[in-house]
């Protein structure tokens, strides 16, 4: 790991100033799990680390009348163990349970989890790839078994975060502090595909930090399910995952959000699948139709067409679980 200037921040304004004056050469250090592995792999080389774990009051899970607010420094295991999350947000709870490994969940933070960089081995290896400002995507004709089947555009990374997939399904929003002030962005608008920015997975600017994730209270009758497939039962990223959050009324799906993980450069909201099930009973035929619709535009690469069937299957399972 190369040397850097370490700047512990004690106020949010400190952190922002410190980021701002580094002009793109600083990285935020919170839990450090993703950051340190990137620094050690020498695929990122910031001159400054702005440590935000010293910021007061960003570790909380608060319930108010609108929803639950999770401080950006709250660890994944704290969220996983939270009684409200377990009861009211089973989808998020399920996603966290299958994220990484137990020790990592003790370290990784809410904010860091949704900002982690993709695991594409070309991005993380000594390859001068598009996402690092290079000229080509090595996955297109290379080893692309784990790459995107949806939303790829020149670059075929998949977004690595299980919690991001869950949070998009839960219609969460993120509070961002920056030099220009504070703003709250629907999490769906937080993530951007390669067609928007090939160098980054989200809209966070160099001088901004996430301070809070807000999840609105699910309406009565809401149910959620998250299913993930991986090659090892621990310590593995999703081959594919499917999150469904659904408001059911007398067996009819009144409202729904469907999000796919591990298959696209961003948590992939499938409006096609949502349109199929909205206003309908979740019959086997409807579920099948919705799953087909979700993957209709999939464009597998040379080694990953299995992901199409796998994603349909996971989505079917999630639908079945919310329909019971």
């Amino acid at each position, binding site marked *: 790991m190369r040397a850097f200037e370490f700047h512990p921040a004690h106020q949010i304004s400190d952190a922002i100033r410190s980021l701002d004056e580094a002009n793109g050469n600083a990285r935020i250090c919170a839990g450090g799990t993703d950051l340190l592995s990137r620094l050690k792999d020498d695929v990122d080389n910031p001159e400054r680390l702005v440590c935000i774990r010293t910021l007061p009051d960003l570790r909380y899970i608060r319930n108010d009348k609108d929803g639950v607010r999770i401080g950006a420094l709250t660890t994944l295991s704290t969220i996983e163990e939270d009684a409200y999350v377990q009861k009211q947000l089973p989808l998020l709870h399920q996603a966290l349970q299958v994220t990484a490994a137990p020790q990592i969940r003790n370290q990784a933070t809410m904010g860091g989890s949704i900002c982690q960089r993709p695991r594409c081995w070309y991005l993380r290896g000594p390859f001068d790839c598009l996402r690092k400002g290079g000229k080509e995507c090595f996955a297109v004709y290379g080893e692309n078994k784990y790459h995107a089947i949806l939303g790829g555009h020149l670059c075929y990374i998949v977004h690595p975060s299980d919690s991001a997939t869950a949070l998009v399904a839960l219609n969460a929003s993120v509070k961002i502090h920056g030099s220009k002030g504070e703003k709250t962005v629907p999490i769906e608008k937080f993530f951007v595909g390669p067609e928007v920015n090939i160098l980054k997975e989200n809209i966070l600017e160099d001088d901004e930090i996430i301070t809070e994730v807000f999840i609105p209270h699910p309406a009565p009758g809401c149910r959620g399910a998250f299913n993930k497939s991986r090659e090892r039962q621990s310590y593995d990223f999703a081959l594919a995952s499917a999150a469904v959050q659904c408001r059911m009324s007398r067996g009819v799906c009144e409202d729904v959000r469907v999000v796919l993980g591990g298959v696209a450069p961003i948590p992939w909201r499938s409006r096609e699948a949502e349109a199929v099930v909205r206003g309908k009973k979740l019959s086997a035929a409807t579920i099948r139709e919705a799953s087909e619709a979700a993957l209709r535009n999939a464009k597998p690469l040379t080694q990953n067409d299995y992901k199409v*069937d796998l994603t349909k299957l996971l989505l079917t399972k999630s639908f079945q679980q919310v329909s019971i």
Partner: protein
Amino acid sequence: MVDDEKNQKPTGDQEYEDTVVNIEGRRVTVRTRKVPPLPDWTETEIVGKALPRVDGIDKITGRAKYTYDIQVPYMLYAVAVRSPHPHARVKNISADKALAAPGVHGVMLPQDVASYTTAGLPLLTLNPKYTGEEIAVVAAETELQAEDAARLVKVEYEELPFVMDAELSKSDKSPVKFFPEGNFIGGGFGRHPIGKPSVYSRGDVEQGFKDSDQVFEETFTTQPQQHSCMEVHGTLAQWDDDQLTVWESTQGVYGVQEEIARVFKIPLSSIRVIGTHMGGGFGSKGGAGKQTALAVMMAKRTRRPVKMMLSRHEDYMGVYRPASTQYFKIGVKNDGRLMAIQLKTINPVGAYQSGANWGSCAAMTTEMYACPNVHTEEYAVFTNAPTPSAMRGPGNTQNAWGLEQMMDLIAYKLNLDPIEVRNRNDVKVDQVTNEPYASKGLAECYKMGAEKFSWEEKRRRRNDPAGTKKHGVGVASQIWGGGGGPPATAIVKINQDGSVNLLTGAADIGTGTRTVLSQICAEELGVPVNRIHVTNADTETTPYTLPSYGSITLASSGPAVRSAANDAKKQLFDLAAGSLGVKPDELSSKDGFIFVTRQPDKRMKFESAAAGMPERDLVGRGYRGPNPKGQALNAFGAQFCEVEVDTQTGEVRVLKFVAAHDSGRVINPHTFASQVKGGITMGTGYALSERRLIDGNTGIPVAASMLEYRPPTSLDAPIDIEVYSVDVPYKANNIGAKGVGEPPLIATAPAIANAVFNAVGVRIYSNPITPEKIMLALRDGKTAKQTA
């Protein structure tokens, strides 16, 4: 290490004879001392007991010092500069900036080490032939400074064409010519000419196929497997004037010492190698590595101790079990008897000739089952990849994937029980050497394993056709060496208070060597194990032994320890006989007492006898004697497994393993069972998840981390493993034991593949059996042939 040169050393002494030792599948003749035979143990008090490991406390307190843990004053850290290209020529190299960097004490370039090679490999090169090959080494006061400085070594490369695919390399279209005579050589040890495969033949296979009722042809492929030792490879070298001390994470301190002496032409007495605690080897740490020689040289150059530990990423760019493609053709009679086997294997072995030693996997096919007509042809093919090494059951582990699936397929086609087919082809004579097996408990393994597993009952169970979770069962067999042999020496020192020091050069690579050798020593002396203190794997304080490879450790050093203990005991009996008023040969010892055999109440304490030693201590020596002439020494086993396959996701869960092994006498049931359970878990990784991968377009490794390589976690390992020893008497050495280090891994992966076939009716020909292979095979309604 055993090599041809030394075998020819004449001794002319009547006390010596030639004997054959089977190491990692090759038979080596060595000259060895004849030793007086000892009677077989009948009733044992300590041997056979599940005693706790003698070094348990060191390991659970963090006190045990591994090579990585050793720190000495003024120590430097060395880091390699490695080729970023799979094939290149270094046009220019400059170390000026690196040398000027903070904390840097030395940089070595290829020209500095040009006259040295280790294991046939250059230490540093101007002509890298794989990504990650060492170009230069930098040493600095901290590891971080060394890493920084390594980036400052300026290297200009001319990139050259490269070849990653073995079939392409072997063809005349290869863009790289490794040797004028061709890009392949015969696989395996021995001197093979380049451009010719190694061939084994017996009988007449063409006639055999004609005489067969049915002939089956299938192709299997295996992926490279990485040892993934929890402690990476590494060395700490320290010179004190002309005395060199090396701490090495190794399976054999003497092998490392010999290699250092050979490379640097210095006397053995000047080299001390210490490897007492080490974090796993699995074949990858059989001798000195390049980093050993580089650390030794750098330490000499900088006059400072130098530590060179590989990073995990470097480890994953290093040694490994090579891949294989196995083309099988087998002819059988309708009753299941094998009539002819033809096997061609392609084994990519990296860019150097020495890799070809491990580019062979046909041996199991030549000896596992009775078959009069066998022809094997093996190609070790050069590619721009790192050089492989031994890995736990080298050759047989690859070969079992193909052979044991072929046997299963034959049973299925002939509608026979897979055990029945195997039993019908059982053989009591090694078919390659025509020597009878000293003992063979394979039939007992089938019988016991089947019974404990409820094989017949489980095979009769049917899955619910509508269900998506299908259960299946499978079996596979294994054969391996494990007879051990000389040279191995042990020293047993009895102190005046009756405490005992056992000195052995043998490594304990996690197997429990220290524990089982202590038990053997205690048993022979008739004292409790806690009276013994064992010191091991230090060339200055412990006597010679071969490295812990080829499952030879117990069967090599164990008999030497018993002989040494017996020698010491006899000397003590000479003293005790006077006190007890009998002749020495009338004495026995047990439970810390020396007593008159026919009159056990006439006795004295072991320590009382020791207190009478005029010299205040006595030393017993023991040597491993020759193996019996004309006998084949092998360990056998059969493994049964039950899996659950999710037909929708393609995920496989291994529910249960029952492993029945024939390893002769079990010295310690705990350590025996641990070896088998660990082997099966490693085999489960080989079967289901592990994959070392180099990007074919660029020649750069991509799956070079624990995360991407995927060794099994606690949630992936088999849920339950039962281990049995069939306990068939074995008399080829004085402790009655054969090795069990490698055998447990060999049968595991094919047993799982066979169970998957039994569950869902598709056969996966290429490991690992990842979910997508099963999904695709089920979707396409056919067997997944060579899905890479």
